């Protein structure tokens, strides 16, 4: 079995030696460079452009403004108007909105000309901070794409809360955060007649193909999207945001291939962000800790309605995580003059479980109960919201194995009860959960006379290991050594696969790869049975085996090159699609985990430092122990950023994001990250999908911030309900 082994990432060497080619790195003849000009006000209208100075700069090829931008089919494009603003009108709805594109023969010249474009505005009224617009809170119209209402209720939570002997009634808030992948958004676009090729940093090549085809009014098959390597996405490359479209528009205008790479500052207003949330939590319990009532009302920041809708689904985990008879949740959106928010690693769960699992900690304190014991007292054996069994749930094992490794038993319950010299020590824990998503995906496999299987799927590797684990799955299915399997992705010429989002790549694509390989084997068996020289006519597939490139049957064996030669073929090929069936109707599909954090808080300065993290997860079957661990430590690290550092600061007056760079927007650095120990509890969930895996890209970030916040409480006695937790929150 190659699956499960800690195989090195196949793209690793290419990346560390600089040979992996990212979107901005494809050398094309005559490449021109585009730079975006963005608005400097938060609301109003553009009155006019003064482009004379900019146009006079050397090397300038075009300055595209709403006055002369080609018209696009924006109406048809998509529910969330991630396709706007595309220079189709002159309305300004946020500061940092694209208003013009400058194209020049070199990047420096384009930058200089862009800095010289002057824009006259008529300033409008802007509300830039969510907390000032709560009166405008609205019910989402397309929650979960209309699949369910934004509110839900079971039992009578208000009545149960009123009479509950122990109550928690608190409000948590989380800030706007930005994804900050290492690679900024980048696109090279090239037109050949009506055919468009784009090299772009995207988590979804198929979506990019559809969106661009729609916007430019061409057939999808005339748009080719190539994206072999992506330098991190975390959600901000999930949709086809305006820069990719504007690059294609610029290429059309200047009649040359055009490259458009966002600056780091532009990354803060061009491809979404995690919206600010305000979450009201009510928990009621009896004296033994049994939950009697839960209410979770979430408000999340939205842009102006013309950009469609994005809701941070903060309360979905609250519906299913604990066995409580009376639960109500609601989701509201609050429009402000900011860009459109979007998915950011564990959208909903990251913010929502921070609130829920902090509140559970507060409840444990009120009950004088061990936090794990409280969770076990409310363990949901079946999904209490959908009233269905889980396909599998090893959360108990996560608590137990995590607690053992972390030595949770050393924790003394009182706050400020553990010390180490000048440091106050705190231990905290929280639960993690994330849905196990799967979408339809296809793959193709071709086996030639050289005995090498080339597997292709139009999926993406956003730095997670797709190249590696899919090759492992194929190698096992075909009984080939890993060296004889090549996996190719990131090109719309390959069979269609879904966006790499919602942790769904492995659960979606690995079944397709497995199915394609099984189909290939079946084809080989058919060929072998039909081949008169094998003498196997009348045999069935079950009489045959395929190993190391050889079909083995009763009394004899035949190699693939022989089989192909007998039929004058250069290769044999098979393609398969794999998609979810009705498993979701009968089961609730989720991954789970338990997070543990140890913090030290300096008694005098208030500095907060993590000294240890342990995460134990039920992520189904593990395809690769190494890439899995990388996902887990990466996710926990992202969660630490959420807990202690990350916050996008908005100037209320101008609506401008003022810390739009990674010197002033803090993400954790190496020195902030303690040893992280990870555990993957044994599981193999064949109900969720035929490979038995659960997505684990987002899971390890969920609950991490709550574990840290709970540890900070334990260290200091200070409950911080507003992220990030800052020194000033705990400074005595």
């Amino acid at each position, binding site marked *: 079995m190659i699956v499960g082994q800690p195989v090195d990432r196949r793209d690793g060497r290419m990346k560390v030696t600089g040979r992996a080619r990212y979107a901005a790195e494809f050398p094309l003849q005559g490449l021109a460079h585009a730079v975006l000009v963005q608005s400097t006000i938060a609301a109003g209208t553009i009155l006019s452009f003064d482009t004379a100075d900019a146009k006079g700069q050397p090397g300038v090829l075009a300055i595209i403004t709403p006055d002369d931008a080609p018209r696009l089919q924006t109406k048809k494009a998509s529910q969330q108007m991630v396709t706007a603003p595309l220079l189709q009108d002159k309305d300004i709805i946020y500061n940092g909105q694209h208003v013009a594109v400058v194209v020049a023969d070199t990047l420096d010249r384009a930058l*200089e000309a862009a800095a010289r474009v002057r824009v006259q505005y008529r300033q409008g009224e802007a509300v830039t901070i969510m907390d000032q617009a709560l009166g405008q809170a609205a019910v989402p119209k397309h929650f979960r794409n209309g699949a369910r209402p934004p509110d839900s209720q079971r039992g009578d939570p208000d009545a149960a809360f009123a009479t509950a002997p122990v109550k928690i009634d608190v409000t948590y808030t989380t800030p706007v955060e930005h994804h900050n992948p290492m690679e900024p958004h980048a696109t090279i676009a090239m037109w050949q007649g009506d055919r468009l090729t784009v090299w772009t940093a995207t988590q979804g090549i198929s979506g990019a193909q559809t969106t661009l085809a729609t916007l430019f009014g061409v057939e999808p098959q005339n748009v080719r999207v190539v994206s072999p390597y992506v330098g991190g996405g975390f959600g901000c490359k999930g949709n086809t945001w305006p820069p990719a479209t504007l690059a294609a528009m610029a290429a059309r205008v200047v009649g040359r291939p055009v490259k458009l790479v966002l600056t780091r500052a532009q990354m803060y207003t061009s491809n979404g962000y995690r919206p600010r949330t305000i979450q009201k939590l009510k928990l009621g319990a009896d004296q033994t800790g049994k939950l009697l009532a839960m209410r979770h009302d979430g408000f999340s920041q939205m842009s102006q309605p013309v950009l469609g809708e994005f809701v941070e689904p903060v309360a979905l985990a609250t519906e299913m995580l604990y066995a409580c008879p009376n639960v109500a949740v609601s989701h509201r959106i609050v429009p402000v003059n900011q860009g459109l928010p979007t998915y950011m690693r564990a959208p909903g769960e990251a913010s929502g479980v921070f609130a829920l699992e902090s509140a559970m900690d507060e409840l444990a304190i009120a009950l004088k109960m061990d936090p794990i014991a409280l969770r076990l007292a409310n363990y949901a054996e079946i999904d209490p919201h959908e009233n269905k069994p889980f396909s599998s749930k090893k959360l108990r094992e996560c608590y137990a194995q995590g607690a053992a490794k972390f030595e949770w038993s050393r924790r003394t319950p009182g706050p400020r009860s553990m010390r180490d010299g000048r440091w106050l020590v705190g231990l905290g824990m929280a639960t993690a959960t994330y849905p196990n998503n799967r979408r339809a995906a296809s793959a193709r496999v071709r086996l030639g006379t050289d005995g090498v299987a080339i597997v292709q799927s139009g999926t993406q590797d956003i730095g997670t290991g797709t190249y590696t684990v899919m090759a492992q799955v194929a190698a096992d299915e075909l009984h080939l050594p890993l060296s004889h399997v090549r996996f190719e992705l990131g090109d719309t010429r390959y069979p269609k696969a879904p966006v790499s989002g919602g942790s769904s790549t492995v659960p979606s694509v690995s079944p397709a790869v497995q199915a394609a390989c099984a189909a290939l084997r079946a084809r080989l068996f058919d060929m072998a049975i039909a081949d008169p020289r094998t003498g196997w006519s009348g045999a069935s597939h079950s009489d045959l085996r395929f190993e190391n490139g050889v079909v083995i049957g009763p009394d004899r064996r035949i190699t693939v090159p022989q089989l192909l030669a007998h039929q004058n073929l250069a290769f044999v090929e098979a393609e398969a699609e794999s998609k979810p069936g009705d498993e979701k109707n009968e089961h609730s599909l989720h991954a789970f985990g338990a997070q543990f954090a140890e913090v030290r808080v300096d008694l005098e300065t208030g500095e907060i430092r993590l000294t240890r993290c342990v995460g134990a997860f039920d992520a189904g079957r593990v395809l690769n122990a190494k890439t899995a661990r990388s996902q887990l430590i990466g996710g926990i690290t992202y969660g630490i950023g959420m807990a202690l550092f990350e916050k996008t600061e908005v100037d209320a007056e101008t609506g401008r994001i*003022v810390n739009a760079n990674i010197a002033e927007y803090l993400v954790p650095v190496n020195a*902030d990250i303690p040893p992280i120990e990870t555990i993957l509890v044994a599981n193999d969930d064949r109900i969720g999908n035929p490979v038995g895996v659960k997505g684990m890209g987002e899971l390890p970030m969920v609950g991490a911030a709550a574990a840290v916040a709970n540890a900070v409480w334990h260290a200091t006695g200070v409950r911080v309900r507003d992220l990030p937790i800052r020194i000033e929150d705990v400074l005595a």
Partner: protein
Amino acid sequence: MNPFAYERASNAAGAVAAVAGHPGAAFLGGGTNLVDHMRLGVASPDLLVDITKLPFDRVEELPSGGVRIGAGVRNSDLAADQLIRSRYPMLSQALLSGASGQLRNLATTGGNLLQRTRCVYFQDVTTPCNKREPGTGCSAIGGYTRYHAILGASEHCVAVHPSDMAVAMVALDATVVVLGRLGERRVKLVEFHRLPGDDPWQDTVLGHGELIVAVELPALPFATRSAYRKVRDRASFAFALVSVAAALDVEGGTVRDARVALGGVAHKPWRATQAEAALRGAPATAESFRRAADAELAAARPLDGNAYKIPMVRNTMVAVLRDLSAEATP
């Protein structure tokens, strides 16, 4: 980025002449601050005079027992220098707490002193800022002020100076040696950076075309027991929320002399003269340290977003002085 010319100076006088005679010229040290500002549009020199090949790259002992640091000495080299580490440990610590290894390898002593504020509005050319564009107003006041000043600010600017190195140097009573067209002059580092007053665009007393050639540290025997403590959100690679540089001379339980400077609190590295006065002759106790801190902080005026700096400075100063006095007690 504005098109610009580049030349490499081969001697100091030539460098001074090149910049002084050209209003749009600037000296280029490591470029870690200036080049960022050129990209942001905050600075747009049309001539860069590279001074990194000038022979200012040495750390030398002075006959007086002090040390002379060439303006071109890189931050990483200065931090590792044996003289500095043994005689002025606070300076080595301050340097190592600044920026990242890569940046310290480039950053020069002169450039570090002249790095400009990290006020986010100063760095964003779309917002008003008196320091960047005189007379346009101060966006920070009433805006995002978590990193801003609590001491010595004015209604025109509340920015802080971001250097760690300069805080230790101010505590050590450094002198800046400057070469101008009329020759050399020497400026006390405490007087080198300015308070914002009503002309916050002037960070320092340096005139256009004046070149820093060296920084001199006088002998200060008790600085062998000194420390720099920087409080910041991240454990590394973050600017100070506040910082404290201190040296303590304790004998028989009494403070004979003290040097204290603060970072992250003012438009300049802040020499805590009130605290020093309160410490001199006082018993080396936590109570004295607290009183010294309070004496310095009496003048503090917090903004909406930075009131936390007052207890943070107090606690940090007390902790640093206590640790130093504990070292002093055999």
